[in-house]
């Protein structure tokens, strides 16, 4: 997939930074709640970005990235709760912890290919919430009761609300991570990662240390998702095992496929998509029932499912892939 046009990227970025400043003009449109929602989208986008590095660019399937998200969230929460660490300092710690966990998990994963790896990661996602409740860890994790945290405070006396600051905080983290990922993929290592995805044997024959690249990619991918988890702990100001059920991992995968496998911009679109659709599916099903007066009792998940099927038919390469295709066809028509 071609890279995202740079000019457009800068414009979008500038817009993203300007939006909260419009609050005094349109207090209802740019409300704190909406900014909070966008922050959760950004967090989801970072998590999907992590998964994309692994699945989209290295060809390893994971059904268990919710586990790394949980580890990141708990690392941040435990550090804030027990060591009174400031919220921003927990991000690198969560990244390191998740990198190590991801790397270690990547070692046995070397022997597992394709579907088997998917199952192993699935098991990981199932196990983590149970491990968090485990008796011996309870002093640290708070067991089922979880850990209540405080929201990030606005630094340097900036004239921002808590939610505005959270938005900027998440946005800055995402921009840095996106930039790092784009640079990494553009380097020798990035090409090696993709070579392993496209032609494993050829890559091996050409002298690429496939084992090392696969495990390190697993680690980096886990670190990205872990950072997203740490951000979510700050945003929600509460962690509990129930927040990290198996559906979380599936959601990341949905975001990945819908946004565009193997596209950085697609990860961001995918993250935005699943938060948006997850929220509007319920509103839509209520709208059908109450306002249109139809007697179907469509559950929110039915709506979600229908949307997904339609989208996959219309844009089998994800939203970003679909847009590219549409643009190319339009140009061909004109030319």
């Amino acid at each position, binding site marked *: 997939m071609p890279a995202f046009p740079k000019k457009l990227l800068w414009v979008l970025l500038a817009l993203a930074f300007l939006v909260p400043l419009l609050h005094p003009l349109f207090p209802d449109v740019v409300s704190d709640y909406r900014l909070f929602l966008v922050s959760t989208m950004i967090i989801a986008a970072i998590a999907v970005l992590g998964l994309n590095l692994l699945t989209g660019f290295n060809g390893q399937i994971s059904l268990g990235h919710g586990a790394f998200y949980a580890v990141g969230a708990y690392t941040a929460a435990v550090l804030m709760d027990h060591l009174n660490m400031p919220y921003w300092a927990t991000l690198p710690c969560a990244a390191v912890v998740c990198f190590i966990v991801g790397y270690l998990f990547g070692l046995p994963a070397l022997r597992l290919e394709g579907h088997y790896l998917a199952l192993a990661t699935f098991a990981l996602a199932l196990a983590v919430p*149970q491990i968090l409740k485990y008796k011996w860890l309870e002093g640290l994790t708070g067991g089922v*009761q*979880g850990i209540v945290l405080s929201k990030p405070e606005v630094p340097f006396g900036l004239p921002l609300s808590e939610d505005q600051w959270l938005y900027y905080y998440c946005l800055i983290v995402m921009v840095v991570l996106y930039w790092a990922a784009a640079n990494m993929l553009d380097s020798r290592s990035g090409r090696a990662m993709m070579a392993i995805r496209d032609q494993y044997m050829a890559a091996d024959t050409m002298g690429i240390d496939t084992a090392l690249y696969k495990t390190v990619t697993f680690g980096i991918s886990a670190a990205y998702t872990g950072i997203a988890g740490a951000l979510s702990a700050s945003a929600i100001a*509460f962690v509990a095992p129930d927040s990290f059920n198996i559906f979380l991992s599936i959601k990341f995968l949905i975001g990945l496929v819908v946004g565009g496998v193997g596209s950085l911009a697609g990860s961001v679109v995918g993250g935005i998509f699943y938060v948006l659709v997850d929220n509007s599916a319920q509103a839509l099903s209520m709208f059908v029932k109450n306002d249109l007066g139809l007697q179907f009792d469509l559950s929110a*998940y039915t709506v979600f499912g229908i949307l997904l099927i339609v989208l996959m038919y219309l844009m089998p390469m994800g939203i970003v892939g679909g847009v590219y295709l549409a643009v190319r066809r339009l140009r061909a028509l004109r030319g």
Partner: protein
Amino acid sequence: MGTSRRGFVGGASALALLSGSTAAFAQKKYSDGATDTEIKVGHTGPYSGPASSYGAIGKCIEAYWKSVNAAGGINGRKVNFITLDDGYNPAKIVELVRQLVEQDKVLCTFNTLGTPTNTAIHKYMNQKKVPMLYVATGASKWGKPKEFPWTMGYQPDYHTEGAIYAKHILANVKDPKIAVLMQNDDYGKDYFGGFKEGLGKDADKIVKNVTFEVTDPTVDSQIIQLKDSGANVFFNISTPKAAAQAIRKAADLNWKPAQYLNNVSASVGSVMKPAGLDNSQGIITAQYLKDPTDKQWENTDDFKAWVAWMDKWMPGANKADANYIYGFSVATLMHETLKKCGNELTRENVMKQAANFQKFKLPLLLPGITINTSPTDYYPIQSVQLARFKGESWDLFGDVMSAEGS
């Protein structure tokens, strides 16, 4: 330019009109979420996910408001009940409740369900000063008006109930040696904490305490351990599936202690019958609501009214499901609270009225149990009555016991 007479009269009448309207304004006071025609009430519940069997409560409450609106609403205002699916996920409920408070601008939230979920929004609701009424969890932390003046529970808290069993054991069992089976989570710990407090200096009478995870397939090995401890009292702190297994296993092992079962699992249909009615004879529990599968209530007025209501507003729903009893009763309490607010539908007044119930008789509560709250007492139901399982139903005995008394 002189003031014309007409101008003066006009000005004076406008002034009179204005003052008239301010007088009318003083009678009617609104916060966000209330108008002359509508009261917005927010709710979240687990319609999907691991706890989705509790989704029945939300559906029952929704049907309740429909029936209220069909009968003309509350003081002429329709209740706009917005209920959302949180999937029992603490991260999700934060998002949803912010939507309810900041976008939908509800007057209050009501009966949000689950201990982890409510913990996630506890601080937020109190910072925003939005009433968070009658939450659907029995943890003891919801009744702290000093720290959290905007949050109130509903059912008797687990802590109190545990203490009541302890008192009963000390008074009735000679030389008790107590074995405890406990679900390893906050709910189990709350019960156990209350139980130990009730035992006081006799806490050493607990000879064995074993835990299980809610995800464990059986509790067989735990029951064997408890039996081997030589205990003659068995306190069963578990949710329905495990509770039924525990009762059955104890009978299979021919272990016959005095059994105490927490109210959470005191259902004839989902616990006593699967465990075997023979095995369940003599088990003691504490109750506050009428069990829908218990035949002794069939001819009481409030129960008959509930059955008629269910037939009309929730046709096809399983009437043996105690969640519908729970939902109906708690919605009635909310209805009464909003009615008492009259035309002063402010958030302050909602809390004031919620904290001002004296001996209010709520349908479907056991006879003799009433709602009592005050600005320092945020536990609406604090009384329970002990019951012994006999034949096919619960046989209530003794007096209604309350936490204040014990």
